[in-house]
């Protein structure tokens, strides 16, 4: 909980600094916002690495095939990348580019889910 509060305070402080920088140079404000986003996201992902380890342990305890979960994790990663990229594009005023990234993310996610669909069809066929 303490980390979340520290995280929020740093984000709000950074936003005030960028508002000031944007008055002088919008380009620098965008660049500074990008830096903050990368640093914060990296920090959040490092905390998340523990999560994926625990998911692996739980899966092996439950006896489920880990290959079935990998597409879900991949789609999660694709959606994270798409979300971050779209917000950066929109911040800089490029809604069209954000839309293109979203379409590409949807297609990538569908491709990742195909193995699961095949598994389901095999399962249904074997009944």
């Amino acid at each position: 909980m303490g980390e979340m509060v520290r995280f929020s305070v740093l984000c709000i402080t950074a936003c005030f600094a960028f508002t000031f920088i944007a008055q002088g140079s919008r380009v620098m404000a965008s660049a500074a916002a990008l830096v903050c986003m990368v640093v914060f996201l990296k920090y959040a992902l490092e905390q998340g690495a523990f999560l994926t380890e625990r998911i692996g342990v739980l899966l092996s305890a439950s006896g489920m095939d880990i290959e079935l979960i990998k597409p879900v994790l991949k789609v999660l990663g694709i959606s994270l990348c798409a979300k971050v990229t779209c917000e950066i594009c929109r911040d800089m005023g490029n809604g069209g580019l954000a839309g293109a990234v979203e379409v590409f993310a949807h297609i990538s996610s569908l491709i990742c889910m195909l193995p699961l669909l095949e598994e389901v069809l095999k399962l249904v066929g074997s009944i």
Partner: protein
Amino acid sequence: MDVDLIFKVAAVGILVAVLNQLLVRSGREEQAMMTTLAGLIVVMMMIIQQISQMFSLIKSTFGF
């Protein structure tokens, strides 16, 4: 968390913003644009390493 990187970039940003305003007010728009460009290049060189680390972290976390 690399908080000092954020402060370095904020310092470069504030410096470029102030210089930009000074140069624009004194009628030197071209130098102002060059200053902003230089500041942007400096920030991008600072950040490029972090961006590659972030994406490799995403790859390793989500099993790409």
